[in-house]
């Protein structure tokens, strides 16, 4: 995904030449009027706890899994490992790499440097949403290990995927940026 957040000033290079920042003319942002209707300033805090979203999450996961199972080249084991890896990659990018919000908020950029995981429930730990989102990768790991018959290669790949899914969700890593990657 392409994020052009504030970076440390770099010398001109070919890559930075191609990357530019797409902004909207300011009047359209203002007319979107987030938070004036209700007092919910940043819906990111709570939308993952709203009615039916957990079911939708599991449903999307199941649909992806069945799509992978239908591909004739993949054996069941490969399909499961692929589901695990794809799930891990997508949720990692959505929850731990993407910072800020996809809309301008009236709260003046408080959440701009926070990943989505850190914004959920205002940063409180061990809320039901966070527990659910931590349990799902673990459940997929167990299922994948079972269906791959505990084969070593598959196990290693699944374990690495699990590591990427669960370790960033630990409360000790709240706000931590290793090697300053993704800091701003």
């Amino acid at each position, binding site marked *: 995904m392409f*994020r052009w957040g504030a970076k*440390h000033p770099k010398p001109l290079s070919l890559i930075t030449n191609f990357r530019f920042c797409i902004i909207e003319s300011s009047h359209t942002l203002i007319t979107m009027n987030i938070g004036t209707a*209700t*007092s919910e300033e940043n819906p990111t805090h709570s939308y993952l706890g*709203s009615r*039916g*979203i957990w079911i*939708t999450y599991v449903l999307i996961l199941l649909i992806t899994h069945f799509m992978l199972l239908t591909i004739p080249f993949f054996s069941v084991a490969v399909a499961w490992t692929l589901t695990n890896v794809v799930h891990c990659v997508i949720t990692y990018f959505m929850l731990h790499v993407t910072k800020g*919000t996809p809309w301008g908020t009236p709260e003046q950029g408080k959440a701009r440097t926070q990943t989505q995981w850190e914004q959920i429930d205002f940063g409180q730990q061990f809320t039901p949403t966070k527990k659910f989102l931590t349990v799902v990768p673990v459940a997929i790991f167990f299922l994948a290990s079972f269906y791959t018959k505990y084969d070593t290669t598959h196990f290693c790949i699944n374990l690495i995927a699990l590591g990427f899914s669960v370790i960033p969700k630990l409360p000790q890593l709240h706000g931590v940026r290793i090697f300053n990657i993704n800091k701003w």
Partner: protein
Amino acid sequence: MARDGFEVAVNGINNNYKHSNGKSNGISAYSNGHKVNGAQSKVQSTKSTPTFKEHFEQTPLGVAIWTYLGYAILVVIGQIRDFLRSIGIEKIKSCTEPKLPGFVPLFQSWESFYTRNLYRRVRDCWNRPIGSVAWAEMDILERVSYDHGWNFELTGKKQRVLNLGSYNYLGFSQNEGPCADAVEDIVNKYGVGTCASRQEMGYLDLHRNLDILVAEYLGVEDAITVPMGFATNSMNMPLLVGKGCLILSDELNHASLILGSRLSGASIRTFKHNDMEDLEEKLRFAVAEGMPRTHRPWKKILIVVEGIYSMEGSIVRLPDIIQLKKKYKAYIYLDEAHSIGALGPHGKGVVDYFGLNPKDIDVMMGTFTKSFGAVGGYLGGSKNLVNHLRVSSHSAIYSGSMPPCVIQQVISSMKIMLGKDGTNEGKQRIDTLAWNTTYFRQRLVEMGFIVYGNEHSPVVPILLFMPGKISCLSRECLKRGLGIVVVGFPATPIIESRARFCLSAAHTKEMLDKALDILDEVGDLLKLKYSRLKRQPALAESDNKELKNGTRNSSVSTFADLCTLSMKIIKTL
């Protein structure tokens, strides 16, 4: 599962809740993040207040799932298109920030993702330019976009449509009639602006007359008026509370109240929307525990509520709040932006609707924008309070005072409402609005839409849920000649996007029937009729009388209520 809305007798004598899931004492339950219908506190009242019916039907689970899938698909496609823009396959049509070497970028592309990919495509549903006065009907200038919402061009044609989007509860937004004539005279006499603040040269005799008239209208000792409605809250709340005070504000309060609360420096705690048990619990906690670390008592506790909540259409449970306030010695700040003029048998707002004493409310605030066809706001209360505000209000010291033409519009419309112009027009407008409200809501519920809010509130939100249906409803209604306001995520919760209708005394029955036919047709086309509540039976004879005066204090409705009340008591025995 759909839940039945339930009847609550506000006076606490009869807690008769009809719940489909069998809960017998209506303990509040969550739906969609806010209360279905918070249970009241068990306080007794000797006044015979009528039944209070509010419905917030829960989102059906299947619909919620489809809504999330819809947003997920839109986000995925948005990401793909952003990717195509970044590698150059698709042209970038918005501004791009020039990349200066050695400078940190000012903007983040991700922040405008939603605007660029979702909002932009359906942008034609909002900010439609109109070419006439925004009355019961209006002219919309036709726009066309050849590049999917990036740029609009006016075609030059105008379309006459029914207006269900403007806040025009009493129909005073006309450009003809006694108000307009009076305003014209005043402009000739006083000019267009005062060009000074109220504490300097901008305090005209008109301002004094307006203050006295507003105080008379509300039934309070004195009032002060402010030239901007939003600023009435944000500039004046800091004068009432400060550090060491506690503000208990409803979950769904307007941004002006939130800004005012923040600027004041007081501690803010929110209670669940219209939930008196939660409010009582928080009050008890605040009185017992005091300030967080020192446990000293709070200097003041201010309960901030609105009369009608414009996004939900719900009415505040004012009798309960007044009893709580008296019990725990708190103060109440009532923002009647939408309810002044629109509720009550005399049009005097939510205090009139419940038949309460205005002296019980410490600070009555409201705006002239919605019902009186003007701009600005007022704050009413005791003489001491208003004297304090006159001296120290930021809006009196630093901003220009209300222009004479606006004052005259308010004075003329208030005089009509009070009956001082000698005609019956004020009463007629109120009755028409009440009848329109009940009729429109009844018909919508019969058709099967999920309608939020109180049965007597002229703000009628119907739920749409899915992102595609938001824009489709708006466009289809416009094609058929109806102009409406739709609101989606992120201004509302993700599974509660809605269309909001604002009824007006200017709407005739034929206009409402036409609007309802259009909504019926489009509702069938888009499958918007989600409601699973049992339909109310057709209007009986006794209900017709109640329709004409959909407020409490008529003798017919009180008698009917007494009958139903006694029947219920007999049934529970």
